[in-house]
């Protein structure tokens, strides 16, 4: 009897091996394609079993082994592993919660750039072009502080709520919920409404949007967008404001220790020098740090009759 085994049929480990199918196409011949074992062989070509295709590591150095999720976008691999997020196995964010992630790829209707939106229940991330940001924008929790400004035009009682925005070009792609309204309305008499809002800490925010009530109103309407990279004009006299247009740029750095601004880098450098005081760079308490030299200095002053 001729027995022919053609390994291209069904793998079946649930049936008794002798009960697997066979055919007898000619007297004295038995043929079967049934498989009771098929390890690492692909069966996608009739009449043959072929060693399956291989595999290879893409990263030479291991990343965090707790790999929860992989999302591919534009050929880049975004990997959520352990407490980190990797792009092509390079870490772009750490300090996250190690938990099961999931994600989608999408973009808002007015945004032409697709992002990955991912969450693990604790962290909520938007990944775009290899950068990690929050998924959505947290609403400001503090109300604006209001006062009367130097302009004219408003009379009545006004209040403000504000939001944080992310704009792409001139398009508002995402906006937070609004802040609470101020506790008290500002009362104006042919004045402008001025105020201060809490600056955003989320780096994806590009603008703060001011919503203002109408006179005695409780509904808030869009007033203006303030870019966070620009600044209001500084001037010494109110009339100067009438001659200023366009965006203002801040060219000094805050010096909170002295309630002033530094216009030059050497100013900040000078103040950071060891032995300088904490109140500016006009002297220093070197006599405290080097008493021996101080004694010599006093002796010198006495020798020239300059010691009072």
């Amino acid at each position, binding site marked *: 009897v001729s027995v022919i085994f053609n390994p291209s049929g069904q793998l079946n*480990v649930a049936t008794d091996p002798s009960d697997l*199918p066979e055919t007898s196409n000619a007297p004295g011949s038995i043929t079967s394609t049934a498989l009771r074992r098929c390890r690492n062989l692909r069966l996608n070509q009739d009449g043959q079993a072929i060693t399956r295709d291989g595999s290879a590591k893409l990263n030479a150095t291991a990343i965090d082994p707790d790999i929860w999720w992989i999302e591919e976008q534009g050929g880049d691999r975004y990997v959520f592993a352990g407490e980190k997020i990797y792009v092509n196995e390079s870490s772009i964010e750490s300090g996250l919660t190690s938990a099961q992630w999931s994600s989608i790829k999408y973009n808002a209707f007015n945004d032409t750039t697709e992002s990955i939106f991912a969450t693990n229940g604790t962290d909520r991330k938007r990944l775009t072009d290899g950068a990690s940001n929050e998924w959505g924008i947290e609403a400001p929790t503090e109300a604006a502080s209001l006062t009367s400004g130097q302009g004219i035009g408003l009379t009545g009682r006004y209040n403000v709520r504000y939001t944080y925005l992310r704009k792409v070009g001139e398009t508002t792609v995402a906006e937070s919920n609004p802040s609470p309204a101020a506790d008290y309305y500002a009362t104006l008499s042919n004045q402008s409404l001025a105020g201060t809002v*809490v600056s955003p800490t989320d780096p994806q925010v590009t603008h703060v949007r001011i919503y203002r009530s109408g006179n005695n109103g409780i509904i808030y309407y869009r007033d203006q967008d303030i870019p966070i990279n620009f600044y*209001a004009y500084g001037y010494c006299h109110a009339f100067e404001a009438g001659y200023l247009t366009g965006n203002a740029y801040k060219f000094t750095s805050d010096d909170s220790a002295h309630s002033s601004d530094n216009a030059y880098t050497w100013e900040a450098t000078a103040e950071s020098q060891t032995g300088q005081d904490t109140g500016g760079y006009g002297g220093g308490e070197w006599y405290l740090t080097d008493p021996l030299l101080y004694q010599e200095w006093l002796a010198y002053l006495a020798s020239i009759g300059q010691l009072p």
Partner: protein
Amino acid sequence: VTTFTQPMGDFESTLPDAGLGPEVEIDHDRVPLGVSFVFGPTYDGTVFATKDNLLYYSKPKQPEYFPSLFYIEVSTPQFPLMTGLIHGGQVYCLSKRDIFYIQGTGDGTFLPFKRDCRTGAQTVLGAITIPGKGICHTGPDGIYMFNASSDMKISEQSLEPLFRGDDVEDMAAVDTMADSWLWNYKNLLYFGYRSSGQDAPGNILVLNLDTGKVAYYVYNDGADVQIRTITTDDTNSRLLIGDNTGYIRVIESPSYTDDSGVAIPFDVKSKDFLLSTRSHFPRHVWYDVEATNAESVTGELYLDGEVHQTHTITGSRVIRRRLVDTGNGSRAAVRIYGSGPAAIFVTEFE
């Protein structure tokens, strides 16, 4: 001249009431904390997020806005939602026990309907849509295929012992479904499961969705590769996995004939052939194997479950009559195994 700056937080408004713009929107909530799975978008741009037994959804085409009241209760608290998917343009959510069809097209119209099913999904990757066939999902005892009219256990007929905890024919039994996964790539359905002693699924069943043929894969580059997650790299048309040692790997790649430099071991075995009225008295075996590039190929003839004759196979489909020692048995089978690239065609004995 004294210069000073005002921080951007300062503003000044002089617009008359009539000059103000649109009303502030108060439904720009972020996706909730505690979300266990996100999926979508649907055809209208709605993104979905499962949290406990609730299904949250975004404003259409605005994935960063999840209004706080945009959710429906789908399952019961005892059976939180494990995963969700879009099948045939419709939204489905799965708990470990049930499948829910989410009817509706937007806020205010979404309504969950529990479908007649035998089980749900055991993990976030425990269900996947198979276009034209249904929703393939994992139960505690196997793999199921749900469509509108039935929920069939597709692993029952040929793979049942594995899900009952029995190692069969060098295939490791399923130890737990808790971290198993399903994935669809091309016309193949991949099911990864963890066997005893493994930290993550190291065994893969591969089902050809067109022919119904199943194969069993194990990746090994010195140690079994245990796969925590899997995805498709659509840009480069390849299948990616993340293993439990911190490596991202491309698998099922025609560019590679080994597993990171380690030859791929293979093994195939026939049924037990029986003759109606007498025993087998095999004298010769012919092997038709393409073994040119293989590291090794061995053929074995089994009689009554024991190896009766072993042959080394080499070359490109060199079909020779190979002698068999004298012996007989009522059950005869053929096994071919080895490592490296090979193609096994036909084996004949008489």
